[in-house]
């Protein structure tokens, strides 16, 4: 199987990292990303990348490599993992805070 792909960007208004979801909207969690699993879907992501670069919702649009690990999406490059979670030196900041709260909720449930 070829590498799984997702489309990421930063939201124009506040710069927050976002990923394109299956619903066509931009979401704040990598887990909500639409995953392109075959060539046609990857080509669709590249088309979406071109369209997104022209609108006024997001900036710095890029296709990234991901894989599925233990029920979560995992970015293959460290840079993308840091974007998905927040600074590794400030675990109290960024998306990792919400991610950790979600995991805690799941464990509690």
């Amino acid at each position, binding site marked *: 199987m070829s590498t799984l792909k997702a489309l990421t960007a*930063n939201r*124009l*208004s*506040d*710069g*927050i*990292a976002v990923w394109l979801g299956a619903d066509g909207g931009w979401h704040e969690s990598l887990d909500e990303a639409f995953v392109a699993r075959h060539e046609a879907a990857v080509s669709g992501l590249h088309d979406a990348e071109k369209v997104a*670069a*022209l*609108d*006024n919702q997001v*900036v*710095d649009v890029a296709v990234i490599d991901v894989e599925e690990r233990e029920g979560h999406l995992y970015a*293959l*490059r*460290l*840079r993308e993992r*840091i*974007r998905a979670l*927040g*600074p*590794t*030196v*400030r675990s109290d*900041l*960024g998306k990792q805070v919400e991610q950790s709260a979600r995991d805690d909720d799941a464990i509690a449930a």
Partner: protein
Amino acid sequence: MYRYDEFDHAFVRERVDQFRDQVNRRVSGEITEDQFKPLRLMNGVYLQLHAYMLRVAVPYGTLSSRQMRKLAHIARVYDKGYGHFTTRQNIQYNWPKLVDTPTILSELAEVEMHAIQTSGNCIRNVTADHFAGVASDEVADPRPYAEILRQWSSIHPEFSFLPRKFKIALTGADRDRAAIQTHDIGLHLKRDDTGALGFAVYIGGGQGRTPMVAKKIRDFLPENELLAYTTAILRVYNLHGRRDNKYKARIKILVHETGTEELTAQIEAEWAKLKGGDLELPKKDIEAISAYFAMPDLPERSDGWALLAAEKRRDADFSAWVAQNVVAHKHPDYGIVTISLKPIGGIPGDASDEQMERVADIAESLSQDEIRVTHEQNLVLPHVALGDLREVYDRLVEAELATANNNLITDIIACPGLDYCALANARSIPIAQDISRRFGSPARQQQIGELKIKISGCINACGHHHVGHIGILGVEKKGAELYQLTLGGSADNETAIGEIVGRGFEPDKITDAVETVVETYLGLRDNADETFIETYRRVGAQPFKTALYGEPSKAA
């Protein structure tokens, strides 16, 4: 301190209004990102990994308490409660919303600050010795000239679209604390035999992927020719600097490719045309600007000597902090305090909004309302009476700002690296934290003595790794972080680019490698007073390479 006049106020307010309009047009879709990006960069707004980043200029590193309180306020209201002081004497906010940035800039304008020319191919924030005006070894305060350069270079129409960014640094002391030889122009303010003030002029220093030490092109430039000569340098660079390749566009490459002698001849020829013209600085203008930087009226405080001596005897921690973080002021009853932003295991250069408020309060009551930012990512209280040092220390302890490590191995420069920066290939901060914890014991730091570690997360070298006594460069290799070690760099009077010692180290091995280098130094030094860099200059790289990689024949 310099105060804005009506033109400065009007200019900055106008820029804020323009930027607000530009942001509105971008958000509404009226202009594209390609059109908007250069506009936001001209106002210091970058996009990083997690959010936008706003870089605010602190001209020549001098701040008032009121300005520091505003920086704290911005951190608290528009960011996540902290800011990062940089190697350019600036402050960066890591989480501002684009839509808030015009309001942030408007708030900064209230305290005579802005973010203009903190990005782009223009003349950037002019930096200076952080002890300017107070250092006991100083010939004259370089800040009036830095301010003149700031005013002259602000939206200078001829120099707003240079081949690449352009950085100017000044010192007025024989001991260079401003790293002037690593800048595009370095200016050393001094006196000639007649007592007249002028500058030794260096050009073509820089770090990045092609590090170069600046070349001295003039031993004495009379002070009134400062703008004419700087214009001549910029004009030659603007005309001949390469625009075909951004990695070869800095003036250092022009100096290297043209040759220092030939380029100097071109600059001198250009200067000959400008000399004595409109750019000549009238003495009364220099005096008017200098008046803003006059030494405050410091009361005699000779009582402080005995008080200080008694407190030092009473408290070893206080005594160690004074020994490490306080240096002589021009006034014998006063000292210059370096506030370390390098707590053991902390993030170099970061300060919380609360800490900024505390520093502002201390400066207001005990340092003539003045604060400095250093290019080594620390803060300075420039005018503290010796008799007030105890109170300053106690208040810094309360604010967790009293680490006694100035110039020691844990006083590490580190860029934001891959934890924040979109350009980075590897993280810098966790490496700095790990080294800081490894060497955190005060006794061990004292034993090692002065040692400057500088860490960058990419070849752009914002963390100044090329001029670290021990430099660390993070790279990405096969998808993982790897750290190259350089030794023997320095950014002082004998500026030198460090030598890469061999293959890189994995993240969990780099602190061990640093420790090997340090232990090798301790074994090699002639005596406890011989610093790391002195030992390195005496013995060269080989003993360190052998310690790290084995005998040369066995080295990979």
